[in-house]
Each structure stands twice: as structure tokens, then as C-alpha cells.
């Protein structure tokens, strides 16, 4: 499913579905309403949420172009862990529960499908070359946080990978930084869980070609988070995960956050 070089003037992008099929439906509907010509998913379809197999048909039916995140790579290959890059023992404890549940409940057919997803995509947004990846263009599970990604570092990523626009996800928090010569870096965020801001809605990104450059808009989408929380509860997923869905605050996997991002959260 190569879309190498295809040109668009307005696209939607998101990452981190984390099995949240309720949010996925709501986001696709919202993006279509806003006239997105194409919708891209930057990976990590499973984790955290219930019934992982429910997200794949939604992606296929809606012609969403997906790339492979570290979680997808692990599930496809049946690895021992999710390759999320956590180092704290408590974080790893919850990551393990989530990973084992997701691996157990993803069918062989969809695991094979995940294994065939590309690691990166190149498209054109107007006359800008855009590179879509999961963590960073150089490493699938690299965390690119707003408060630890200097402009000159992002410029070098663009230079090294010959891109005018880089889109990534992996951290679960959306942000963007304008670079030189109209170039742009965007972390498109995640739709599987809220953005650690005390709100239950999730965030995705609209990108538009505009006057030789690209503009970015982050969009919050409410969805039936109670239905998700109930399904998680029925599936026996940790109360900590359910609390995040119901409150908008991250309760686990916080130790990887740099201080600026950590301070904005409750835990």
C-alpha cells in the first residue's frame, strides 16, 4: 500500500489508537466532516484498551493509511515486550499487563496485517515533502517531547531525512514547532487516551497546505468514554487505566515524561 509521493492539500493524522475503537470512530467522522482528503494513522493500534481486534476493520473500511509503531511491531512478531522504551519498574509492570492482554487478544490475521505495515510514508502536502513516522525518522521508539526537542535538533532531522514536514507520535502528547524555510515538525498526538490534561476528550491533527507552507491544527474530540471504560472493566483491565479514561489524567507510564510535561499532569 504505497502512497509514495501522493499529493494532498488537507490531511488528518493521529497516532496511539490503543484499541480505543470508540474514539477511532469519532475521530474519523470528525476528520471527514472537516474535509480531510486522507486520514493517516501513525501506529500503535493496540495497548491499554479492550478488544484489540475491533480497531482493524474500522481502519480498513475507512481507507486509513497506517504505519507500524513499536507496539504493532511487537504484536506482529510476538516479541516479549512492547518496545515502548519505559525504564521504570512500575511503568514496566503496567506495560506488561497491557501487552500480554493485547497479544493474547489480537488474531493471527490482524497480526500478519500489522507486520506488513510500512515503517514510514512519504507524501506531498502542497509542494512540501512530508515524512510520516512513529517515534522519529531514525528510531521507531524515540520519544520526541516538546520540552526536550530543540529546534536545531528537529532541523537536522529534516536535513538528514530530506523532509520539509515531519509527522510523528509515540509520546501521546501533541505539539508542533515551526522550523526554518517554512518547514514544520508535528507530533500528532494520540487518540487512544486523553492528553493528561484532566479532560476526557482525545486529540488528532489536521494539516493543510497553505501559501507554500503547511499549517497545523490540533482538534479535540469527545467520544463515548464511558462505554470504553465499561468494556475495559469487563475485560479485567487495570483500574488505573480506566481512571485515566474517566478523568483525563495519566496514572501510569509517567516516569518517561520530562519535567515540563510531567508538571502539567496530576500524577
Amino acid at each position: 500500500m504505497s502512497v509514495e509521493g501522493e499529493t494532498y492539500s488537507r490531511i488528518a493524522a493521529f497516532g496511539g489508537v490503543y484499541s480505543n475503537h470508540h474514539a477511532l470512530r469519532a475521530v474519523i467522522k470528525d476528520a471527514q466532516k472537516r474535509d480531510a482528503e486522507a486520514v493517516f494513522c501513525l501506529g500503535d493500534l493496540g495497548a491499554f484498551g479492550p478488544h484489540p481486534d475491533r480497531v482493524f476493520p474500522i481502519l480498513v473500511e475507512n481507507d486509513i493509511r497506517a504505519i507500524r509503531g513499536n507496539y504493532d511491531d511487537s504484536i506482529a512478531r510476538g516479541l516479549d515486550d512492547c518496545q515502548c522504551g519505559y525504564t521504570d519498574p512500575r511503568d514496566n509492570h503496567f506495560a506488561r499487563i497491557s501487552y500480554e492482554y493485547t497479544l493474547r487478544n489480537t488474531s493471527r490475521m490482524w497480526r500478519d496485517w500489522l507486520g506488513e505495515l510500512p515503517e514510514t510514508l512519504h507524501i506531498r502536502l502542497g509542494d512540501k515533502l512530508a515524512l510520516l513516522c512513529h517515534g522519529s525518522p531514525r528510531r521507531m521508539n524515540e520519544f520526541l517531547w516538546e520540552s526536550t526537542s530543540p529546534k536545531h535538533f528537529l532541523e537536522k532531522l529534516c536535513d538528514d531525512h530530506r523532509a520539509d514536514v515531519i509527522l510523528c507520535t509515540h509520546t501521546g502528547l501533541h505539539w508542533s514547532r515551526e522550523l526554518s524555510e517554512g518547514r514544520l515538525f508535528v507530533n500528532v498526538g494520540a487518540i487512544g487516551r486523553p492528553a493528561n490534561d484532566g479532560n476526557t476528550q482525545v486529540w488528532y491533527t489536521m494539516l493543510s497546505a497553505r501559501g507554500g507552507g503547511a499549517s497545523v491544527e490540533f482538534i479535540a474530540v469527545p467520544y463515548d468514554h464511558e462505554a470504553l471504560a465499561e468494556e475495559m472493566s469487563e475485560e479485567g483491565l487495570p483500574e488505573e487505566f480506566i481512571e485515566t479514561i474517566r478523568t483525563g489524567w495519566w496514572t501510569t507510564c509517567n516516569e518517561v515524561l520530562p519535567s515540563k510535561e510531567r508538571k502539567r499532569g496530576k500524577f
Partner: protein
Amino acid sequence: MATDNLSPAPAGATPKSGPGAEAAPQIPLLALDHLWFQVAGTVCNLRCTHCFISCAPDNHSFWFLDLQTVSEYLDASKAWGVKEYYFTGGEPFMNKELPAILERTLAIGPATVLTNATLLPEKTARRLAEIDAGSPFSLELRVSLDGPSAETNDPIRGAGTFERTLQGIQRLVEHGFLPIVTAAQVWCPQEDAKVYRQLVEALQQIGYDRPRIKILPTLHIGREEARSRGYSAEERVTSAMLENYDASQLLCSSARIVTDRGVYVCPILIDQADARLGANLKEAARPYALEHRACYTCWVNGAICANVGGIGLER
């Protein structure tokens, strides 16, 4: 990363032990992500018994870096795409220019200071908070504390340091910081979980309700060699040990450290003459052979100098 980037040391490299001993494997600099500054040289107000570079008030082997020197390296670092800046010593706050250096750094990227937090009067803490608030980047304070009580910490770090360090941490927390408390594993590993719990309790008692804690292995060089033990002959990194090993875990694949005597491979090895790689970043970008026993600790634990990572605990 792929192991095919790891070329063996050139023929003729000196065998480390016995005739025909295998040359140490070389690690290329994959990307200069982390630029360190030995900003206080080897000058420290404390004389910790486990210090791997034997810092002390009278250890002037390395001297302070001034604002001008750091600024020149910050400017040069942009072309290298440096991602994070780290400041260590000695005790960085012995260098009176540190706040100005941090302000300059945080204008372009994130900064981390490795400190004992005993030289943080109210005025300095307030200044740090102002610098932090004025930057889009994170200012991390990594505070060394080697035990959850004066009885455990002070024999290592000096009389009264537990109390003084806790006061420093408390002041940082009051100014909105979430310091990363780092403890060297000076206890036996079986006690990891217990010590961790006690550290959490000690920090919560002073009002740090969500403490960030990082436990580090000790490095058996410098003063630590006398305190515990040196490395054994078997504790060395060989080429075979790097097969199927993610060498990006090793700091030397992504970092260099600036000192007043040139650029060295990593903050652990500045006492080792062959760890000086050049007079500037360009010269110091060459590969480094893992000659030293301390490289073994890095190989075992990985990423020990980064803000996240350390010894994993089951708890």
C-alpha cells in the same frame, strides 16, 4: 542499531592482558545527542567515598568552564543537532556562572544539572525557577542522595549531608521543580526494593509527593575502588558481547563531554588519558574503543547517565 557499525580496533592495538588478547571493540559516535559539560571541573564541596573521579574541594585536576566557553560550544552544537545538554562536576553550583550558563542553554534546548543540592539557597532556587519558567524546554535537577537516612547516606557523602540535601530538595519542590533523586547502589542489591520504598517515604515526608527516583550502579574506579572493590580481569567488554547488543545504549555512541582540558568521550572516564578525544567537537567525533573496566558497568546497565533508566527494580 546494527552491529555492523562496530568495527574492531585497528590491528596493532595493545593487548590488554596476555599475549594476543583481543582488542577492545570500537563504538562510533552515531549522533551527538547529548552534550555534557564538566562545568565545575573536579571541584566539589563534598568528598564522597564512592566518587568515580575523586572530586573534592582541593581536586583541581579539571577547572571550571566559563560562560564564554560554554556559549561557544552551545553555538557549535546546533550544527550537530544536539538534543540535550547536561552539566556536571564536581558540584556544578560551585561555579557561580552556572545560572547564567543555564539561562543561555535553555534558550536553545533542555538542560540537566547533576547536583548535591547543598548549595541551593533560596535566592538560587528562585533564580532557577525564573529561568525554567522563561523557557519552553525542561530544566531537570538531578540530586544525589545515597540512602534514605543520615545513617545510610552520611558515611558515603559526609556528615550532615542527608539533612542538607533534603533541605535543598524541599526548596526545589517548593519552587515547582520535580527533582530526579539519584541514589548510587551502595547497599546490597537484595535491598533495592526496601531502599526504594524508604527513599519514597523520606521524600514524601518533606512534601515531595510524587518523587522521581533513579538508582545507579557504582563505578569501581576513582575513590569507589578503595571503598568497595576494583574491576576483575573478567569484567571487560569484548566484541562478542556486542553481538545482538543495542550499542545505542552506550553513552559513547551518542555523547561527548566538554572539559577545560578538551573534549572527552564520557563523564565517567575523564580521569583516563586516552578518553580525551580532541580539542573540539569535530576532533572528538571519532570512534572510541571500550578499553576501560568501567565500560563494563555501562554495558551491563546501559543508559546509566541519561535522565531515564537505571537499575530496574521489581516492586
